[in-house]
């Protein structure tokens, strides 16, 4: 049995706004095993990004706060940890890359300074050794002329290069887990192919576990071993990438997969899920997807189904699959 790098148990991250409490992450359970790529998919507002920010304790507070659950990183719960202890963990054990690299690179420092700062802080390397390390990291992520780029500023680089720099920074301490939040969404498709290739190599060659957050089902199919589908703050289905794409169980997953146009087939009309994503609130009842679901039943409006294991590695949160109606009462 593989040891999980990350185990999230019943995580609740809520936002406290003028208009009330918003349960952005509403009881999420997730596991990332060592050496695997877990995809977390869902549409805007489903809680996938807030889940990943929660792991690093980077949810802006106020208004956000983790109000319940555990985040076990190599068995150690991060939820009670203070900012000081988290600083020792970020970058070291787990690091993160974001959609827009420009907002996470400091425009006032050269690329090299930003990597050097990290490794000196965490590893206590000498300035010279840290610089050599920085160049090595840049080379590793496929940056040409790394010796020169190390002294350049972020604005001098293209989007694809900046994302490479972000990746170089985030792997400079050789973390166990890399969280990538929409890492290629802002990039062109040929550059996306380069960056995905790089992330895959890191995973295969270094064994870095990856939690890949994306809305792009193509990226998921191509990159991930396992997939968790999120909807309205909850995981609605989880399974191997083959389970999810070949026999999706949850009506939302089925709808999502059918909505995407594909290059290798022609359909006159795309399937579309009617309606819109619900506004999250504390008083939601029943299955979150019920108002849009083609198979909706009476019980769905009343009571929230559990995430139930269907096969060894395939779970689904739906009254059609396994939840007995007695549970609802």
């Amino acid at each position, binding site marked *: 049995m593989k040891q999980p790098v990350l185990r999230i148990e019943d995580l609740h991250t809520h936002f406290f706004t003028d208009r009330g409490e918003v349960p952005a992450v509403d009881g999420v359970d997730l596991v990332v095993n060592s050496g695997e790529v877990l995809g977390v998919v869902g549409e805007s507002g489903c809680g996938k990004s807030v889940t990943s920010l929660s792991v690093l304790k980077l949810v802006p507070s106020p208004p956000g706060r983790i109000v319940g659950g555990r985040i076990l990183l190599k068995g150690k719960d991060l939820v009670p940890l203070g900012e000081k202890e988290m600083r020792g963990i970020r970058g070291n054990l787990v690091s993160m890359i974001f959609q827009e690299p420009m907002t996470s690179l400091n425009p006032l420092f050269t690329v090299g300074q930003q990597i050097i700062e990290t490794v000196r802080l965490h590893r206590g390397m000498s300035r010279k050794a840290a610089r050599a390390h920085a160049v090595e990291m840049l080379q590793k992520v496929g940056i040409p002329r790394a010796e020169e780029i190390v002294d350049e500023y972020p604005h001098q680089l293209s989007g694809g290069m900046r994302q490479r720099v972000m990746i170089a920074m985030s792997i400079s301490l050789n973390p166990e887990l890399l969280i990538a939040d929409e890492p290629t969404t802002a990039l062109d498709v040929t550059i996306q192919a380069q960056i995905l290739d790089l992330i895959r190599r890191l995973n295969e060659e270094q064994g870095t576990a990856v939690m890949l957050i994306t809305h792009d089902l193509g990226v998921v199919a191509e990159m991930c071993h396992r997939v968790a589908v999120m909807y309205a703050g909850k995981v609605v289905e989880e399974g191997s990438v083959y389970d999810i794409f070949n026999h999706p169980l949850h009506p939302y997953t089925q709808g999502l997969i059918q909505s995407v146009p594909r290059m290798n087939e022609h359909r006159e009309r795309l399937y579309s*899920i009617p309606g819109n994503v619900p506004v999250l609130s504390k008083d939601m009842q029943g299955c979150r997807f019920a108002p849009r679901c083609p198979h909706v039943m009476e019980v769905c409006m009343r009571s929230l189904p559990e995430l139930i294991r269907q096969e060894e590695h395939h779970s689904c949160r739906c009254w059609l699959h396994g939840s007995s109606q007695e549970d609802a009462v």
Partner: protein
Amino acid sequence: MSEILLEVSGLKKYYPIRRGLMNQIRGYVKAVDDISFSVARGETFGLVGESGCGKSTTGRSLLRLIEPTAGEIRFEGEDITRLSLEAMRRRRREMQIVFQDPFSSLDPRNTVARILEEPMRVHGTGDARQRRAAVERLAEVVGLTKAHLQRYPHQFSGGQRQRIGIARALALQPKLIIADEPVSALDVSIQSQVINLMQDLQSEFGLTYIFIAHDLSVVKHICDRVAVMYLGRIVEITSKHKLYESPQHPYTQALLSAVPEPDPNIRKERIILRGEVPSPANAPVGCAFHTRCPRVMEVCRNVRPPLLETADGHFTACHLYVDSAPASQTRN
């Protein structure tokens, strides 16, 4: 294909780069660099390419929202680049645009009813009562309710806002709609709603679309013919079936191979291009793609390849397919 609605020839848009004390022109950003294509009535013509390839500049130039530097744009036979601003404004009733960002293209201080009525008011169509009736009909065709009309843009989701943008474009019963990345800002489940809506409207009103997008799967779904752009130039134009089944230009081949398929059972042979798109301010001499092309030849570094018909209805700008380079012919 039937009658030509729009014919573009030699379209260019150059932006001067000014530097120094005297503000001298030191060069040009060639955003659109001599492109030609035509669009038949009732078809959906796709313009695809990566950021900076000039596809949006092309779209805007066609409506003269950006004034082209050179070239002809014939709409129903009339060269609209020669029209006075006033005549062009009247002509735009027939040519409308839908923008990518439904958040920034709707005036936040106006109700939906007012947003939809405005084009009709500006162009003096009907009286107040007729316009109100027209607004209600527009809302209905794009799937909004009467109650929505009194609300403001911020009260809508992205998908609904894009419906408003589409309704506004339809207000003057145009012949041509230029849709610039109309679904890229939308979630997957909403994206398919909007695509289906656009297809329904096309058959209902006999619209012609120019569909600008970077998402090749969406383009494949909605378009009849597709032009692929790279650094301000068209490198390939053909029907979507030919483009996706037998792409000829090495750039098109790489682009198509780079698209991740939403199917884990497919393992694609991927062409990973090296490097990045050069700056349009300093485009490579010869073929613009030669710096990244896996099949580059000597001639590519010096001579710009013309867009030639390389197969029936299939146009490619690549030296691999130029007759005068017979050595390369055998490579296919």
